[in-house]
């Protein structure tokens, strides 16, 4: 008995390196749980089954910030994965980390995998591409904020659910009517800084930060205390004081309130679709993000949130070949179209969008194309290309604090944003020093 056990062990130890030699392993760290986690796991399985040279091993490393930090810590310990998912906020940090990352355009060229950077829709590609047109990371999941409407809640409060909600002026009047009709939660939001400041600025074509929102250089300063932003936050602050805007937290905590049917309106990413569709026991629909009529030049375009895949430096050429194959697989039209329809994330290639339309998905699920339209409506300006700011995760933390001060009535919108600018600029200067 004992002998046979030792025998099996010996055999298995001899065999396992052989198996590893036959298939090259590629580590992929991501930040998805729940339904999204299952979908990513399915994509990886499909890739592994489709060929026999490479095995992609996917691991969940916590939320977006935790995944980025796990990747950084792993790099410092020389244990980095091949592919790391980094949310859009970490883009500037990754871009400055030359020597830690291997640009995607390089990986793809070396691996010989099929790759056409022009297949990606401009607003997505621009975020992850250098000014010279080199794509540094592969866009993976991108979304943009929209307005979700609980039609039943409107009816319960005696408000017509088909009311025009395209401008904040109209939304303001609707909130009054909802409150008067007895709604306990007329409006709730997720990702307050992303939606009500970052996207707000792009949508109204006003700068969020100098130097083209950081795209043109590290010597950028925040400009989020401008007239347009302050006016919007002042209105939001008043709504918060009157119980018309309910604040639930910094991330997407508000989703629970909305999906439970408590709230009438919800500003949230288009990728909230998977969860809302699965859980909501009421009629809902999707509207474009509202804008302030008369502020800036009307609705420009919104910007993306979500994540891209970065390839880390320090692995074997053979492994990078596998990485290239996997990334090419992920950006193939079929996979992208399926991902878009399952999750509500944007189709990141024009082809995937066309395939989805051709399959009749938008006709069956009205409103799912609103995010795409809203993002691609106009040619992006310097204010609406996106944001590229260092230490942005921390700066968002500061903005969140200052916004909370407005909602609590402790500070005026102007005071809070002046303070956010001052504190954020200090961090931008540190980032500039660190990457001199």
């Amino acid at each position, binding site marked *: 008995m004992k002998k046979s056990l030792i025998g099996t062990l010996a055999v298995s130890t001899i065999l396992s390196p052989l198996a590893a030699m036959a298939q090259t392993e590629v580590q992929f760290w991501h930040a998805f749980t729940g339904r999204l986690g299952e979908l990513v796991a399915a994509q990886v399985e499909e890739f592994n089954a489709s060929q026999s040279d490479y095995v992609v091993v996917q691991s969940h490393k916590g939320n977006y*910030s935790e995944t980025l*930090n796990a990747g*950084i810590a792993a*790099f*410092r310990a020389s244990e980095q994965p091949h592919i790391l998912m980094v949310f859009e906020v970490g883009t500037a*940090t990754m871009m*400055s*980390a*030359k*020597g*830690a990352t291997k640009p995607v355009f390089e990986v793809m060229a070396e691996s010989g995998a099929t790759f056409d950077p022009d297949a990606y829709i401009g607003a997505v590609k621009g975020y992850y591409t250098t000014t010279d047109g080199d794509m540094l990371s592969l866009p993976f999941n991108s979304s943009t904020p929209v307005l979700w409407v609980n039609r039943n809640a409107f009816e319960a409060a005696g408000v017509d659910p088909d009311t025009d909600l395209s401008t904040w002026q109209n939304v303001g009047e609707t909130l009054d009517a909802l409150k008067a009709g007895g709604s306990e939660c007329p409006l709730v939001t997720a990702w307050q800084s992303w939606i009500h400041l970052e996207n707000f600025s792009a949508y109204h074509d006003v700068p969020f930060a100098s130097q083209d929102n950081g795209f043109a250089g590290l010597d950028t300063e925040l400009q989020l205390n401008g007239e347009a932003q302050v006016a919007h936050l002042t209105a939001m602050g008043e709504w918060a004081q009157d119980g018309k805007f309910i*604040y*639930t*937290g*910094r991330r997407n905590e508000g989703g*629970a*309130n909305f999906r439970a049917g408590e709230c009438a309106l919800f500003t949230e990413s288009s990728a909230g679709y998977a969860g809302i569709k699965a859980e909501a026991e009421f009629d809902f629909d999707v509207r474009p993000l509202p804008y302030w009529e008369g502020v800036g030049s009307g609705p420009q375009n919104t910007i993306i949130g979500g994540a891209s895949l970065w390839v880390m430096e320090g692995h074997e050429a053979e492994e990078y070949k596998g990485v290239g194959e996997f990334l090419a697989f992920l950006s193939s039209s079929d996979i992208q179209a399926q991902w878009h329809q399952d999750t509500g994330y944007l189709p990141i290639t024009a082809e995937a969008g066309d395939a989805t339309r051709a399959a009749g998905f938008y006709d069956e699920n009205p409103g799912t194309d609103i995010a795409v339209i809203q993002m691609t409506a106009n040619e992006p300006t310097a204010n609406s290309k996106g944001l590229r700011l260092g*230490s942005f*995760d*921390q700066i968002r*933390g500061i903005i*969140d*604090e*200052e916004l*909370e*001060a407005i*909602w*609590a009535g*402790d500070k005026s919108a102007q005071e809070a944003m002046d303070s956010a600018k001052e*504190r954020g600029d*200090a*961090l931008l200067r*540190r980032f500039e*020093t*660190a*990457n*001199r």
Partner: protein
Amino acid sequence: MEKRVTFRGWLLPLLLIAPQVIISAVFFFYPAGQAIWQSLFIPDPFGLSMQYVGLGNFEFLLSDPFYRASFVTTAIFSILVTLCSMIPALFLAVLADRLIKGSGVYRTLLIWPYAVAPAVAGVLWLFMFNTRVGVVSWYLGQLGYDWNHVLNGGEAMGLVVVASAWGRISYNFLFFFAALQAVPKSVIEAAAIDGAHFWRRFWTIVLPLLSPTTFFLLVVNIVYAFFETFGVIHTITAGGPQQTTTILVYKVFSDGFVGQDLGSSSAQSVILLIVVGLLTVVQFKFIEKRVHY
């Protein structure tokens, strides 16, 4: 005359103190030295390059009004946690000590919360006080009180204090209970015969005899409140709202491990090292004098 034990030769005594010296060197002197060195630089997150800034990190910190406010927050938090974990513990220990039957059961039940990790305790309390689904916040709502620790700094502070103190009550209870058992019965009985009632005996005999334990727990609990509570704070408030629950150690953690700003984080560690050093001197110089062994 004090009794002295002397060793012949150097080898054996060196060998005997070696483990302690090695542990201190590896786990204290080396990291502390690293922190001091790193506090003079702004490194990039990946450790690829460093920019020498001299005392720039300290300047950056001390000119930040939120960082200065964090000292006050830390003081309030530590005092509250220490009081909220020691007073109930002493009270429960006195009650358990008076039990004739079943004190074992009470003792075991009271020690249980200590087994819960701080981060888990944080989640438990957060769940009870969740503004949407929390049991306690629902009852408070019924009483007409609108609980919202997400926006209200005072409520947030109260919640992290309670969540941090809860598990410590068990730990403190254990020490107080053991100390109470060690109080000589003869002294108490003598006082009882003299006509001193329970509380009188407690104030004049038991409490002074407990002073070494109380002092020990005071030091240990302040150290706990300083260094081991960031798990609770991270899960419940993440330092908010508006940094009203950002204690010094939490800021070290969040700037270093969330914000990847290792220069500022190291500078904060150095400042903390000095603060804790001073605190220890104060505790042993002034408070220990009042302890009767």
